[in-house]
């Protein structure tokens, strides 16, 4: 019973390109509707059928992820995932990408990325307690890359600092593959008493739909489709697509929404994100199994002369939709007014599952919701699984430099060195809850009103994923879990952001397919479900494509936050050991990249069962109070990890590795010291403990069948691996702190 008469002639190719629909998709839409969509409908379909909104390529693949578990309160499908973290609290979290906008305007692109992910959390009634970021750029020596890097960091800080949510962690890599497409992912973690968790599904025909917050301007129209096409040289002309965020307004919006969360007068809340009013209203109604009618004439505008199409697709920031019963509208509006927020009733819930847009009187769009939200033809593999060239085992062992110089170069590398230049510009303490600050492994934030703490981190080494998408993605999950475990936390759930190139390219599609399989492998092995995530495709330009980049955001729980474990050494005289297997190979390591350019061939091995055992061992050792510090071995291997523990604590170390380079049991051929020190073998921690704890630790390690190698002791003011490497703590610290400084 559409009130819309059939559209005119089918659109031209140019008109379809404008809304990023293929001819086949257009024809599918016309078939489903039984008529040609009109101009407004076409734009709305284009936005909602974009990869960004519809997940047409990734949705079938994402089904492979394990998303259930005893603690899961909300899996994927809502604005964010939620897990039960004990004491009646739910932890709500999600990660999201803002790669494309950040490439065009780094400050605002990153800032509005933070604004967007914050809304996803407080929409669910949770107070955001922490932000994290995951950033990747081209080589830092290049002025354009430094410009992007500095702009993005300033934007993240600018938004988070102003709104008063601490940015407690993140990660940062520089690599050629990101020269033309940077990666900016932001994660937000919130906390809410479980019974106040709010869902975004509209109910009750006749209920009012309130639009709250910023006035609507022509911001980012086509943002959703924009994120779903690759960059070409005409991207410049789409520049008005960049939005300027207003963290102050969002702060007021957040406080007002949190005041209303759990209030029975609120039927549903939904933030406005991709595809603006269209995307949000459609999702809200679709989740609730109802329809919605929006009158664009009632939407407050920032600019004059906006068309219904522009109003519906505007991606103006800092806006929310709130569904309330008609009799409660006044009272709810008063809450917003107290925060000086403007709100208007812009529509209502209807029983029939349709998406109707009016401009004052006449309907300008009338589409069945299932066509709009679920109708897009899902994409399948563009071709058969490609044969991957079998890579010969490369086995690189040696460093081009003497060991001392090797260590200092690694510490000075922008990929490994101190991130202080970044996190000192982020308020990481507001909220009075940051127990472990940025700079170590995972950050730890206590849950206000509880003795529990949340450990959290983002991780993902794209070098491994590009060599072996499945294993690399599994490594990302394991590494994230390791970081959380090192603080004494138990990993409970994760979120993920899949940043890939154009999935219409067969290789890219299969990389994505395999990476998802790898996440699933590790999740299953470690018993950690996926509760939310985001997919960012088309991260490529005419000239280059990003390495497949899987970013894992992990959250863990510490039952008593006062008993968390530090990464830095604790006291002189403690013993140190490596828990986990020996490394030897330098393939795919940071040292290989620095010393020999990008010629990695083989990603590190991963034994998921061993990984699980090593993590259990460390977790139990911390719980039993046996460890004084724990730090996972990641990029740069044992040598860099040991130097970090020393730099962070101001305590040196003396270690013996002769026995490792020439293993008495002949377990393998003799290792080069470089391989032992800087190889990036997985499933390992560097731990320190009081001598008296050794026997108990050995017992525990034996019980978990985990190798435990004593290395030496903490103390002095040098980093010494006898006969192999000996540098002063001061030299190491200077190199480490220099890593991100401009080379003057």
């Amino acid at each position, binding site marked *: 019973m559409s009130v819309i008469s059939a559209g005119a002639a089918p659109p031209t190719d140019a008109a379809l390109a404008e809304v990023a629909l293929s001819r086949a998709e257009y024809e599918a839409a016309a078939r489903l509707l039984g008529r040609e969509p009109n101009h407004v409908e076409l734009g709305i379909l284009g936005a909602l059928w974009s990869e960004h909104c519809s997940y047409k390529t990734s949705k079938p693949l994402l089904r492979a992820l394990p998303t259930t578990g005893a603690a899961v309160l909300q899996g994927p499908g809502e604005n964010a995932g939620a897990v039960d973290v004990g004491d009646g609290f739910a932890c709500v979290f999600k990660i999201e990408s803002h790669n494309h906008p950040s490439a*065009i*305007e780094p400050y*605002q692109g990153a800032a509005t990325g933070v604004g967007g992910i914050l809304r996803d959390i407080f929409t669910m009634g949770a107070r955001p307690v922490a932000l994290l970021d995951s950033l990747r750029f081209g080589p830092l020596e290049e002025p354009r890359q430094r410009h992007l890097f500095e702009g993005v960091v300033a934007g993240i800080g600018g938004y988070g600092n102003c709104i008063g949510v601490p940015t407690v962690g993140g990660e940062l890599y520089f690599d050629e593959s990101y020269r033309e497409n940077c990666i900016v992912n932001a994660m937000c973690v919130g906390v809410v008493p479980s019974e106040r968790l709010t869902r975004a599904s509209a109910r009750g025909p006749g209920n009012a739909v309130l639009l709250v917050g*910023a006035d609507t*301007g*022509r*911001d980012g129209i086509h943002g959703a489709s924009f994120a779903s096409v690759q960059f070409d040289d005409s991207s410049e002309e789409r*520049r*008005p697509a*960049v*939005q*300027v*965020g*207003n963290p*102050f*307004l969002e702060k007021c919006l957040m406080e007002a929404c949190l005041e209303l969360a759990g209030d029975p007068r609120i039927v549903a809340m939904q933030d406005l994100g991709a595809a603006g009013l269209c995307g949000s209203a459609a999702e809200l109604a679709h989740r609730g199994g109802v329809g919605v009618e929006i009158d664009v004439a009632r939407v407050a505008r*920032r*600019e004059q002369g906006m068309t219904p199409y522009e109003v519906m697709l505007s991606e*103006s*920031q800092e806006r929310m939709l709130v569904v309330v019963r008609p009799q409660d509208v006044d009272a709810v509006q008063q809450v917003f007014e107290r925060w*000086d927020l403007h709100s208007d009733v812009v529509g209502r819930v209807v029983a029939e599952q349709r998406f109707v847009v009016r401009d004052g009187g006449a309907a300008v769009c009338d589409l069945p919701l299932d066509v709009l939200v679920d109708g897009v033809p899902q994409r399948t593999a563009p071709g058969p699984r490609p044969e991957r060239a079998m890579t010969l085992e490369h086995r690189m062992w040696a460093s081009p430099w003497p060991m001392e110089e090797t260590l200092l170069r690694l510490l000075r590398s922008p990929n490994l060195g101190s991130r202080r230049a970044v996190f000192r510009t982020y308020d990481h303490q507001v909220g009075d809850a940051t127990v472990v600050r940025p700079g170590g492994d995972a950050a730890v934030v206590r849950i206000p009103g509880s003795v529990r703490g949340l450990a959290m981190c983002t991780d993902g080494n794209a070098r491994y994923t590009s060599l072996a998408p499945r294993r690399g993605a599994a490594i990302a999950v394991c590494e994230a879990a390791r970081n959380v475990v090192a603080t004494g936390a138990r990993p409970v759930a994760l979120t993920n952001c899949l940043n890939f190139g154009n999935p219409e390219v067969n290789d890219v599609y299969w990389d994505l397919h395999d990476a998802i399989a790898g996440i699933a492998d590790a999740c299953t092995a470690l018993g950690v479900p996926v509760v939310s995530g985001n997919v960012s495709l088309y991260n490529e330009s005419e000239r280059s494509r990003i390495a497949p980049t899987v970013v894992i955001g992990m959250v863990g729980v510490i039952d008593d936050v006062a008993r968390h474990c530090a990464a830095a050494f604790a006291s002189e005289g403690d013993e140190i050991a490596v828990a986990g297997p020996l490394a030897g190979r330098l393939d795919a390591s940071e040292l290989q990249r620095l010393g020999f350019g990008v010629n990695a061939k083989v990603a590190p091995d991963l034994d998921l069962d061993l990984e699980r055992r090593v993590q259990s061992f460390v977790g139990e050792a911390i719980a039993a109070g046996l460890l004084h510090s724990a730090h996972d071995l990641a990029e740069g291997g044992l040598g860099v990890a040991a130097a970090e523990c020393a730099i962070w604590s101001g305590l040196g170390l003396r270690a013996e590795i002769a026995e490792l380079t020439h293993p008495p049991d002949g377990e393998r051929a003799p290792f080069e010291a470089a391989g032992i020190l800087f190889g990036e073998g997985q499933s390992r921690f560097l731990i320190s403990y009081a001598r008296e704890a050794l026997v108990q630790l050995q017992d525990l390690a034996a019980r978990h069948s985990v190798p435990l190698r004593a290395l030496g002791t903490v103390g002095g003011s040098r980093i010494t691996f006898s006969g192999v490497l000996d540098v002063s703590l001061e030299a190491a610290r200077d190199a480490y702190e220099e890593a991100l400084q401009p080379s003057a």
Partner: protein
Amino acid sequence: MIFIADVVVHLKPVVNDPQGLVVRDGLRRLGFADVHGVRVGKHIQVELDAGDEQGARAAVESMCDRLLRNPVIEDYRIDAVRAVAEAAAAS
């Protein structure tokens, strides 16, 4: 010769200007009910050596294109270029 150029950089009219909104509301709260709108931008004073006014203006234009404004979201105009006696007004 020494010139001083006044450059005005503003967000493009279509771009959201949160700062302008807060100042507008602040003024209204102070009783200035007749304020319709406020936009806040930058005023940049550049002191430079150049052969003549045309040269100075051309240089400043190129500075705007390369550094002073962000072409993605900002417009600029050069308000005035004037010769100064000798020594500096801006430092």
